[in-house]
């Protein structure tokens, strides 16, 4: 790696980590969460970047090299559908197979009448979450895995071998990707590790959102106990993937915690307590959490304000970012706030105006990272993402 590139990398890492400590770096860091946008820019279809992770990596690197960004995620098209099909997971619609090749992958809710976990199975999950996932959940969500007690099969055995080795290859490839981003464009890998809230896991992958809504009324104590049983495992998984140097945060991708999915009372009772403990547990280990608050989270600000100072980087989607800044800007670095529909349907001038408003409103004292409100798919116009980048570079200098 050239000395020049190493210097650029060091500058960018310093800029990014300084902002995340809620301090004032030399400039506002730019860290876009770009998913299928990278495919559009680099000339790939959604199918190509979703099913072939080497193409996804290449697309991310091309964007990093061409745009003056400080940090990117190695691959934001997070579900590698090659692995999905090898394991036989039933809950995705895949571009180029179930979907047109230029449509992003779709997550499918568990069937309402036959969720992946039945309402009378909470005790099994609570008793041994890992055992339940292996023995009950995986056979239900996979076309390849045989249920316990039934005759095993060649396909059953293969799915574990293939799945395990493919997953290992994929995760190891992120290390190579991080190194290439650093060497080729001096770009920081923005995140390390993954976390989801216990409530979101139960909703998305086990009971379904509607099923869990019924459970909150019919068996609330079981829902709480299930969240508590999942909590140490999700903490362990997040910590095991975290940055060993403790520079970049773990990505927490939240789903059903905001209005209108949950009322603030339901949030306080069911969603928050175990998630808060996980975030605090990570912080005790020196690990920051990227709190991706997709949707409208401002009604929950009083709970989020309970978290230790600097323990999260608060990413704003539909919430009023100025209100967020007023409530918790003294505690946490903020990111995001440039609306995705503006990047998709607005003009570069609209985007520049929005960036200026946000920078003036929340970034004057540091502690802000420029990004769109939500993960950018292929609807974001290239000229608008350029405008967001270039304006921030000119105007976002301290």
């Amino acid at each position, binding site marked *: 790696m050239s000395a020049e590139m190493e210097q650029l990398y060091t500058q960018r890492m310093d800029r990014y980590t300084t902002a995340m400590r809620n301090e004032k770096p030399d400039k506002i860091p730019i860290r876009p969460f770009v998913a299928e946008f990278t495919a559009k820019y680099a000339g790939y279809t959604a199918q190509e970047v979703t099913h072939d992770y080497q193409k996804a990596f290449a697309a991310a690197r091309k964007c990093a090299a061409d745009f003056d960004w400080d940090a990117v995620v190695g691959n934001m098209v997070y579900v590698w559908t090659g692995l999905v099909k090898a394991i036989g997971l039933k809950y995705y619609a895949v571009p180029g197979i179930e979907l047109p090749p230029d449509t992003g992958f779709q997550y499918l809710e568990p069937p309402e009448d036959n969720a992946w976990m039945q309402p009378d199975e909470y005790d099994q999950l609570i008793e*041994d979450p890992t055992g339940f996932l292996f023995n009950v959940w995986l056979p239900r969500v996979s076309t390849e895995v045989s249920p316990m007690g039934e005759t095993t099969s060649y396909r059953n055995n293969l799915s574990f071998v293939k799945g395990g080795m493919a*997953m290992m290859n994929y995760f190891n490839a992120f290390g190579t990707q991080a190194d290439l981003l650093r060497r080729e464009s001096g770009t920081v890998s923005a995140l390390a590790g993954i976390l989801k809230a216990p409530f979101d896991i139960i909703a998305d992958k086990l009971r379904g959102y509607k099923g869990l809504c019924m459970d909150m009324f019919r068996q609330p104590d079981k829902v709480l106990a299930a969240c508590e049983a999942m909590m140490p495992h999700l903490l362990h998984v997040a910590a*095991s993937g975290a940055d060993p140097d403790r520079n970049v945060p773990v990505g927490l991708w939240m789903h059903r915690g905001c209005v209108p999915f949950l009322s603030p009372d339901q949030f306080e009772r069911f969603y928050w307590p175990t998630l808060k403990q996980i975030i605090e547990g990570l912080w005790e280990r020196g690990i920051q959490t990227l709190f991706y608050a997709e949707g409208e989270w401002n009604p929950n600000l009083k709970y989020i304000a309970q978290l230790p100072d600097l323990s999260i980087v608060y990413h704003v989607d539909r919430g009023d970012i100025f209100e967020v800044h007023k409530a918790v800007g003294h505690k946490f670095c903020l990111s995001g706030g440039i609306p995705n529909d503006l990047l998709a349907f607005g003009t570069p001038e609209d985007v520049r105006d929005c960036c200026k408003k946000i920078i003036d409103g929340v970034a004057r004292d540091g502690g802000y990272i420029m990004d769109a409100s939500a993960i950018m798919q292929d609807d974001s116009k290239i000229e608008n993402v350029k405008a967001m980048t270039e304006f921030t570079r000119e105007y976002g200098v301290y």
Partner: protein
Amino acid sequence: MAEQEKPKIEPGVCIPWEEKRRELPEISGDEGIVKQVWEDVDGLGYLYIWQCLVSF
């Protein structure tokens, strides 16, 4: 004889070392190495299922 309560399985573990140890003959060498490597590889199995759940 009263049935022993099954110990809770900790995060990072599929088959606890103590259970595996009972299946092994006398270990003539360094038991610490055997235990460490068992736990490391067992942890990979644990991560497989939890990463299927969380990441995919």
